[in-house]
């Protein structure tokens, strides 16, 4: 169909929204409430355009043959300016002392639309106290512009239902049930709300300054571990697509002052060693199937909160972050001369839920700081590090070497693929001809396949986003779906789309990050976790063998049934 956009004619093959059509021809219209994975709601009204002379929201209006669209007529611009002025009047402006101002969409649009001076009374927001109750993020309704994106992401994409709209009109606010503190709700701390909040009403808890204090303390040894997904996205924070390699990232971390830089991918390799063998065991005993992965703390909490009957199905393996921390505290720290209390471990994660995971009571003392990709980028910027001038460095030994299987832990399907590589080869003693499991790669929300291991057909499935996980669990519960092994990651695309990742994170950036991790895998000499020389060494020197008594003590964990509301206010 032919559509005129700003007096130029364009041809489109299929029906789509005006917003998408404009984006396709290189015109990004401003919007605060739109999320590409969700149904358009048309509530922020910022994306208005004139279509055939009528003011319409471009996200909810489909193009029609012969339509004439003006994206920047005077009327449109005036509407958007008025909209922004109204929002700013209802927003606590602290832009200079606001952590998110450089990522703030309201700030960006106000700048672009030449807003200076608000002709309206500022709305008093004094009644709102920030909710600081959880480790992962802070909710500050003083800065909320009520776009509802957090609620939609939480309820539609994730189906977690931790926050909802409450009240109406001028009193509308995003609220937890009974206005409980967020840590007393079924929130999984996945951080998708943080990632999608256009302002700073939701932001991660910053631990970087405390971390810096520890680094500057000469008595203290500070080590860090870097998750796979961080290296897949950190360059975006510096406006680049490539050029910031893992080696340069390690150099930057050393420059900041970390005494040791380890690779969470090694933790991932450890996880695979344990998880693959656990899977084989469960299959042998035909017990506790399907087995669910347990690397994603948001997913683990989701099961603990909502699906108590599936808790035994969760793999007992700790996540890579926690496995590496355990091995660091026992195997590595023992070799250091410092007192245990002077040894600190930070982890750099694409994830806000990891902050909370590190504070689960089972794990207390293992990890001292968890910072996100965004926090790391701020530290690097604070140091003024110029990546171009840096040399490449290696991760520290012996927790620095990793396999390609560990790298793909960051993408949806990666854990499953890595586990299958090791499970198959361990069980059959045969080499896989092709280590890539194409059927579970890519951004489809539900992927599945099967593999024959010694005559037993093992059926596996991969889902990402908790919304899809909920659907799959309900199907399994009803007996409509049958799998032996299921991988779940809470965020779109897996950890690469995590709540701590650079803003914006959209499907385009997720695909790019995915590709970067697959490339790292491809270039690795060791593609399978059990081929990683450090892994062989750690098991040889310390852990004996997968699922050994020692491995169980250090690398496995327990889960708990959680419930809210019922035991409180009626």
């Amino acid at each position, binding site marked *: 169909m032919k559509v005129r956009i700003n007096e130029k004619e364009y041809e489109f093959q299929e029906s789509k929204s005006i917003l998408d059509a404009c984006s396709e021809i290189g015109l990004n219209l401003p919007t605060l409430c739109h999320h590409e994975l969700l149904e358009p709601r048309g509530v922020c009204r910022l994306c208005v355009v004139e279509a055939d002379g009528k003011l319409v929201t471009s996200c909810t209006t489909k193009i029609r043959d012969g339509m004439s669209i003006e994206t920047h007529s005077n009327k449109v611009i005036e*509407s958007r300016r008025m909209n922004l002025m109204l929002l700013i009047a209802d927003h606590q402006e602290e832009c200079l002392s606001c952590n998110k101002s450089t990522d703030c969409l309201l700030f960006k649009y106000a700048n672009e639309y030449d807003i200076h001076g608000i002709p309206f009374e500022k*709305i008093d927001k004094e009644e709102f106290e920030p909710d600081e109750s959880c480790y992962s993020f802070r909710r500050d309704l003083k800065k909320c512009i*009520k776009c509802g994106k957090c609620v939609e992401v939480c309820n539609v994409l994730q189906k977690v239902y931790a926050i909802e709209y409450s009240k*109406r009109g001028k009193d509308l606010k995003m609220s937890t049930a009974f206005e409980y503190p967020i840590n007393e709700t079924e929130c999984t701390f996945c951080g998708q709300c943080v990632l999608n909040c256009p302002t700073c009403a939701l932001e991660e808890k910053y631990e970087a300054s405390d971390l810096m204090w520890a680094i500057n303390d000469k008595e203290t040894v500070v080590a860090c571990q870097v998750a796979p997904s961080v290296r897949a996205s950190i360059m975006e924070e510096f406006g680049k697509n490539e050029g910031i390699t893992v080696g340069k990232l390690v150099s930057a971390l050393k420059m900041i002052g970390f005494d040791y830089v380890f690779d969470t991918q090694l933790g991932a390799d450890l996880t695979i060693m344990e998880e693959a063998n656990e899977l084989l065991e469960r299959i042998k005993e035909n017990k506790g199937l399907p087995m669910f992965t347990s690397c994603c703390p948001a997913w683990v909490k989701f099961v603990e909160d909502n699906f108590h009957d599936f808790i035994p199905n969760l793999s007992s393996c700790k996540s890579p972050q926690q496995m590496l921390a355990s091995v660091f505290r026992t195997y590595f720290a023992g070799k250091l001369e410092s007192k245990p209390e002077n040894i600190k471990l930070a982890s750099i994660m694409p994830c806000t839920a990891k902050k909370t995971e590190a504070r689960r009571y089972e794990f207390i003392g293992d990890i001292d700081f968890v910072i996100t990709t965004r926090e790391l980028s701020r530290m690097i910027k604070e140091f003024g590090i110029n990546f171009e001038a840096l040399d490449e460095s290696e991760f520290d030994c012996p927790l620095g070497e990793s396999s390609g299987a560990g790298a793909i832990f960051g993408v949806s399907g990666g854990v499953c693929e890595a586990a299958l590589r090791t499970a198959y080869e361990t069980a059959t003693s045969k080499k896989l001809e092709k280590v890539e499991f194409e059927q579970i790669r890519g951004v489809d929300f539900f992927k599945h396949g099967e593999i024959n291991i010694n005559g037993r057909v093992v059926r596996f499935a991969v889902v990402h986003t908790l919304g899809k996980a909920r659907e799959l669990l309900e199907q399994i519960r009803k007996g409509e779906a049958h799998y032996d092994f299921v991988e779940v990651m809470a965020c779109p695309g897996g950890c690469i789309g995590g709540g701590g990742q650079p803003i914006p994170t959209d499907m385009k950036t997720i695909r790019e990050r995915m590709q970067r991790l697959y490339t790292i895998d491809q270039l690795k000499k060791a593609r399978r976790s059990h081929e990683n020389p450090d892994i062989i060494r750690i098991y040889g020197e310390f852990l004996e063998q997968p699922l050994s008594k020692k491995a169980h003590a250090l690398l496995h964990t327990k889960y708990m049934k959680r419930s809210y509301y019922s035991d409180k206010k009626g």
Partner: protein
Amino acid sequence: MKHIIRVCTCTGCQANGSLEVFEGLCRAVSGRKKECEGKGIEIEVKETGCTGLSETVPNVLVEPSGILYVNVNEDKAERIVDSVINNYVIDEMLFELDGKKYGKLTDVPFFALQERVLLARCGYTTPLSLSDYIESGGFEGLKAAVSMKQDEIIDILKRAKLRGRGGAGFLTGIKWRFLKNAKGNEKFLICNADEGDPGAFMDRSLLESDPFAVLEGMLIGAYATGATRSFIYIREEYPLAIDKVKTAIDILKENGYLGNNVLEKFSFDIEIRKGAGAFVCGEETALMNSVEGKRGQPRIKPPFPAERGIFGKPTNINNVKTYAFVPLILRNGPEWFLDKGNGKSSGGTLLICLTGKIRLNGVVEVKMGTALRKVIYDIGGGLKSGKRLKGVQTGGPSGGCIPEALIDTEIDYESMQELGSIIGSGGIICIDEDDSIIDLCIFFLDFLEKESCGQCTPCREGIIQMKDLIIKIKERKASEQDIAMLEKLAVYVRDNSLCGLGQTSPNVVLSSLKYFRDEFERRISGKPVFKINEKCTGCHLCFLKCPVKAINGSPKEIHEIIQEKCIGCGICYDVCKFQAIDKE
């Protein structure tokens, strides 16, 4: 001879003690049973629906004489019964207006000048009596309908030009055709009884007074569109209406008019859903969300309800009055209905709620196209205060203000829209010269800022700021730019809001700025404020000189400046010989 004494027991009348009157009458009748028998008189006291004359309730109607007694209380019950038995009229209890007394209800101008079609049963039948309903023509429309094809019914409605009476005024026939033609195995009808406008109570009155008529309209709708299930969405604040409709549904079920195999032609079920009192749930898509158990906020259209409505199924939503019209149209034909209009886009009569400073407030029914003046002065009896009418606010929070100068306008969809207002659900609030337009705007904006669902920016934030700007103007802190900004903001909210609530919310501001702009402008900051101090001798000079009659006071008493009216010209200040006027 048989006499019937009718007492309305609708919510409004009950609140004024009509139940006590009813019981008093019953007691009085049974107390004089023997006497009646002796005289061959039979008296029955019956509950009825509301006549609509809310000003003088409780009202009592005696039949067959047709005598109307007003402002009745329990103590007067005996006398009424006595008057029936002994065949006389109690003069002092008759309706009186401008010194003239009216005996018969039909002689009272309030009733005589109405065109009561929808309200024909109200006051004359017992709301939950199926026999009363059938005797007065009930189910004739339904019976006529089931003898026709679906398309014929829809065609009749189209020819009758029945426009939806909920506010938007969409043609009912077209809407029904959408639903009839919609694909889907299950279709829904919804009756919107979430009457939320301040000062509107005609839907409640109709549901309480003639519930079967509304249900019959829905039954015809079901047959014509193929809908099998339906909901009546009534606000929780209408417990009596809910009770009556519930009982009416049960009665219809018992008598085979609802459920499987209605008149051996179709199956249909009606359920009641209670609204929790959110104004926005009167918006059809928000209403559907609410019925589904979701948060009551409007959905984006398209898809329209006929395509994807409640539970994702094709749905048709009409207002209470719209459904109640349908049986009448099928009974009397489209020409009859058209004849009740003024030849423009809509046929039929119009239900109006007269409130505010009007002398006779209540529910009235007039032909579409009746002049506002006739409704206010001839039917409503003019203003209570005897003061000059300043204007009328029509259509509730979505409507606008019309000045006295335009009072000869005929009430129909087009004319109201031309004036920047709407018919809406039919509320008319009269204001007199003492009322401040600015306060009226603040009242409605205050209502709307609380009742907006809050999802879209223009409505949620825009209404707050419009209200704030007007308060600023009221407090004389605003500049000319603020008035310009108010107007700009109002236009923005109108053009940018997601649903009808937001789009119409600035009507009250825009129409006020159009017709009463001077009231805003005279409050611009910088203009001096004058106040009279205790030195005033009551010489009355300022009173005489004030060009806008903004000074109150009798000679030899301290005078007072009505700030609402003052234009800050300073003439009073100049003429005062006693330094009794302060300039701030």
